[in-house]
């Protein structure tokens, strides 16, 4: 059933956030807020070296320290043979994950975990770390992706032979994998082209910057039953990965999802949980661990930094006929950068006959990358959207017109395979052209940039249950951690189907023992896939409600209609019964057949790709190189906004993070490969006063595969900002900034170099 054309009473409104009061009063329990009596504090010793062989680890002095109850090293974790299991947006190699959680033979980056202790106080744990004697043989290291690919670069993994090339290379290198996508005939395409532009671009690794550092509380009971309290983007993921890394049965582990203080992709893998469980097993006590911000920077995953080249060929009339891209992504210390999506997303916005994309997944001595909103796409699109802007300039064409001319529509076959269906890109471009921001004159000395972005979005496995309480109020439980307000949306969809006010519906996130498997919150999938499960479960409940009314009235169930939270006889033939509302049916549920509830699990397909266009006005201080964002508008096809405020929040947040990526965020390394700015003072996320009000414009082209038309919205908005800003800077000062971040010293240097 779908509600695309229906007259909706709840979906599309803006009720108050159900988890808001707890959060603003400080009562919400985040990962670090749970404590139990007698618990120990776990801490991790991290490598000071970017690349070093671990010669020996002597933990005896630490173990002897009063108050220390357990010390673990990689020896306490089973060795995992190389095996790859596909988990959603990126491949996860559990051998690598195990090695990342606790280094086995080599420290592969500064911050790599080497050992861990559990002690009665955090201070004692710190003191114990200082007593662990690690002998390292320091090895040459490499950080930069282009350098890591050079012959002769220090090789991180002796068994890494580039996958995806034929024949298999004879020597190990830092290139884990090569990805190619081809459409048409690229040489023919460029031969046909009348105008060609080329550019080469670099981006820096950037951290997701979630405000809540990783933390957990783990208890290993004497009977082998384990409980873990932790926030994450998927408590089923935490359970599976912990089980895998420790060789345990999933049924023995129960993970309770804590409130999460941001993830943005960075909490789709684990760092602490297996360590805390191992320490708990050894000590017999509950173990609490929490990273400092410095550890978050040194030890947890940012997204890739990259080096990208783009070449575009077009006819004089603006028809793009050929597009070529080479992408080199830093994966961090282990294979697994988002090179795949990077290769997919750059050109997917356009209908181009000849496309050639080549991508490299490259390891270097940096923390293992983790997903970050639309993994790979922002990097790829930054390069493409700068090149498209340069092409417009060379053609003497307005950049929006060029995009209108070449944009992907339903039926466009992408270079990576699928054909676009049910997309709303045309509508996004129409809304862009119609927007007052696009029409407004550009103020003297300002510049305006435009860029577009695409993300495919995912569906996948989700479970939901809906229970009718005795008084007719409703409980909704799902297995999806609530990162962007999903409890509100889940409650709203259930309320809509039931025809009751949303205040009567409470949604929760159930733990791993209390609901069916649910894939992690990522890929902008929850409102789509989990929302589908909730809607279907609620529909099943409605069927039961109708059956109970039919039973009460002694008429066939087909003769009952459900509307506005009440059962009605369908038409006069069905009988003249007064309506039975939800509360009345609920009160008698025991006598009419027992509790009313339903559980639905889905593997949702048809996520519905998302497109966005961002318009940005900047002012550049030519003497200092400082860029001020004057006005920012983000237009996006959201399918259907279940709760428009949260959708706008997703768009504003994505744009804000993209602005940081564009202008100020970067990892700075010294010549030893150590990060010099592991804190928010020198790792510069934008602060509130750096940003104008970001106007989010919701375009609603319903996704017919979702009951309410929703499509994922959380990832598209981080894709266009970098190019939109680079394009705006070019419009302001006439200089193309190809290297991120476009920080004041770089801009001033570019201005000086231009004379």
């Amino acid at each position, binding site marked *: 059933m779908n509600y695309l054309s229906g007259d909706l009473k709840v979906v599309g409104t803006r009720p108050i956030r159900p988890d808001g009061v707890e959060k603003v009063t400080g009562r919400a329990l985040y990962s670090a807020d749970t404590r139990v009596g007698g618990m120990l504090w776990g801490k991790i010793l991290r490598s000071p070296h970017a690349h070093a062989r671990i010669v020996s680890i002597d933990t005896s002095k630490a173990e002897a320290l009063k108050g220390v109850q357990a010390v673990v090293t990689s020896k306490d974790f089973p060795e995992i043979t190389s095996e790859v299991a596909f988990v959603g947006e990126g491949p996860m190699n559990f051998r690598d994950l195990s090695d990342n959680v606790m280094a086995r033979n080599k420290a592969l980056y500064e911050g790599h975990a080497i050992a861990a202790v559990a002690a009665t106080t955090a*201070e*004692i744990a710190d*003191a114990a770390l200082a007593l662990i004697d690690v002998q390292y043989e320091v090895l040459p290291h490499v950080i930069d992706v282009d350098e890591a690919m050079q012959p002769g670069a220090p090789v991180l993994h002796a068994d890494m032979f580039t996958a995806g090339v034929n024949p298999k290379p004879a020597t190990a290198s830092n290139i884990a994998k090569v990805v190619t996508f081809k459409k048409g005939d690229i040489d023919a395409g460029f031969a046909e082209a009348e105008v060609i532009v080329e550019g080469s671009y670099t981006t820096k690794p950037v951290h997701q910057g979630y405000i809540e550092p990783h933390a957990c509380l783990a208890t290993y009971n004497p009977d082998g039953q384990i409980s873990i309290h932790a926030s994450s983007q998927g408590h089923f993921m935490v359970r599976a990965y912990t089980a895998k890394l420790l060789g345990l049965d999933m049924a023995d582990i129960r993970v309770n999802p804590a409130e999460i203080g941001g993830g943005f992709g960075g909490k789709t893998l684990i760092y602490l949980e297996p360590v805390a469980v191992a320490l708990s097993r050894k000590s017999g006590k509950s173990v609490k661990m929490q990273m400092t911000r410095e550890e978050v920077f040194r030890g947890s995953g940012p997204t890739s930094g990259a080096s990208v080249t783009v070449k575009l060929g077009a006819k004089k009339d603006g028809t793009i006929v050929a597009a070529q891209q080479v992408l080199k992504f830093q994966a961090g210390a282990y294979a697994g950068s988002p090179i795949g999506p990077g290769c997919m997303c750059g050109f997917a916005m356009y209908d181009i006959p000849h496309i050639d994309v080549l991508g490299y997944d490259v390891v270097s001595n940096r923390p293992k990358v983790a997903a970050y909103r639309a993994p790979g796409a922002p990097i790829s699109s930054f390069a493409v959207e700068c090149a498209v802007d340069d092409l417009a300039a060379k053609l003497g064409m307005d950049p929006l017109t060029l995009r209108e001319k070449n944009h992907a529509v339903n039926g466009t076959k992408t270079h990576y395979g699928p054909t676009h269906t049910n997309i709303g890109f045309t509508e996004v471009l129409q809304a862009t052209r119609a927007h007052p921001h696009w029409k407004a004159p550009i103020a003297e000395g300002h510049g305006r940039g435009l860029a577009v972005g695409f993300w495919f979005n995912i569906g996948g496995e989700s479970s939901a249950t809906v229970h009718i309480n005795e008084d007719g109020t409703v409980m909704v439980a799902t297995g999806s951690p609530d990162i962007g307000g999903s409890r509100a949306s889940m409650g709203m969809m259930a309320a809509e189907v039931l025809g009751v006010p949303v205040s009567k519906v409470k949604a929760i996130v159930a733990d791993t023992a209390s609901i069916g498997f649910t894939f992690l919150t990522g890929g902008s999938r929850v409102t789509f896939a989990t929302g589908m499960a909730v809607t279907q479960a609620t529909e099943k409940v409605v069927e039961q409600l109708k059956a109970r009314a039919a039973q009460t009235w002694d008429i066939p169930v087909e003769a009952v209609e459900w509307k506005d939270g009440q059962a009605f006889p369908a038409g006069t033939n069905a009988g003249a019964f007064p309506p039975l509302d939800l509360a009345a049916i609920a009160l008698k549920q025991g006598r009419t057949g027992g509790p009313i509830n339903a559980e639905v699990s889905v593997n949702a397909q048809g996520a519905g790709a998302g497109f966005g266009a961002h318009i940005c006005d900047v002012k550049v201080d030519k*003497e*200092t*190189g*400082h860029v001020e964002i004057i006005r920012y508008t983000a237009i996006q096809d959201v399918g259907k906004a279940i709760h428009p405020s949260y959708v706008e929040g997703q768009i504003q947040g994505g744009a804000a993070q993209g602005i940081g990526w564009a*202008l*100020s965020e970067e990892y*700075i390394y010294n010549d030893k490969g150590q990060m*010099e*700015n592991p804190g928010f*003072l*020198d790792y*510069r996320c*934008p*602060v509130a*006063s*750096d940003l104008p009000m970001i106007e989010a414009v919701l375009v609603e082209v319903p996704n017919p595969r979702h009951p309410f038309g929703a499509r994922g919205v959380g990832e598209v908005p981080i894709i266009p900002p970098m190019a939109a800003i680079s394009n705006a800077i070019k419009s302001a000062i006439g200089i193309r900034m190809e290297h991120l971040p476009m*920080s*004041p*010293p770089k801009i*001033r*240097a570019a201005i*000086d170099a231009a004379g």
Partner: protein
Amino acid sequence: MTSLSYAAPTSVDAAVKLLAGASGLAKVLSGGTDLLIQMRAGRFKPELIVDTKKIPGVIGIREENGAFVVGGGTPGAVVEAHAGMTKAWPGVVEALDLIGSTQVQGRCSLAGNLCNASPAADSVPALYAAGAIAVVVGSNGRREVPVESIPTGPGRTSLAKDEFILEFKFPARPARSSDAYLRFIPRTEMDIAVVGCGISVTLDANGVCTAARCSLGAVAPTVLLVKEMADVLIGHKLDADTLAKLDAAAQAAAKPISDKRGTAEYRKKISGVLARRVAQIAFDRASGKATGKTH
């Protein structure tokens, strides 16, 4: 495992005695917005903390014949709310106002900013330009010294173990005098100066500068008082030629390093840029062309 004593004496004498008597590291505490953070980061482990805030005079502002005396521990927010200081020393006030956020403003002090001895401290260039006098108290009594004699290097001061700053004196202002401070940061707030510049000037009735003090922050191990910049201004109006010379003098005086906050080359250029902009604001204020906040 570690012990830490805290005392909040109510007189200068008691405070000095505590400091003099400490066997290990003793630290003076004003707002704590540097000290507590550095302790948490493990930069040092003091044995004793002496909080100055209960000592009479440490918090508050008084006017003495056009001069102002500002208690060393007076929070930034209190100074900014003081009409007399804002009028006479807008540059000092705007520099102090740049420190941190509203929350930090409720605590951060001039004494703490000066004695933390960071070359990038925001209020310090303004204090140097203002020619403020630090009133230092210790076992040997009380001495008055120019503020620029306090910091001696990053994190180091000329104060003895038993000394602390009680208050700052700002001299009475001649007519047509004013000051200004600007810093450059990549963001708009909650950041640390890449370069800071403070300038205080007195003009004659024709707009010619008769006295000037100029300073640069974050371009050397300590904040610099730059006489060459002042010499360029004195005897001149702020015309294009003077501005160009000021820019050059600032760039010549700046001896920055390249670090994660900016390259040496960039910092030199910005020193010149800021010097011009700050001079313009200070001259406009002194000549009555501009009043109030500039940022």
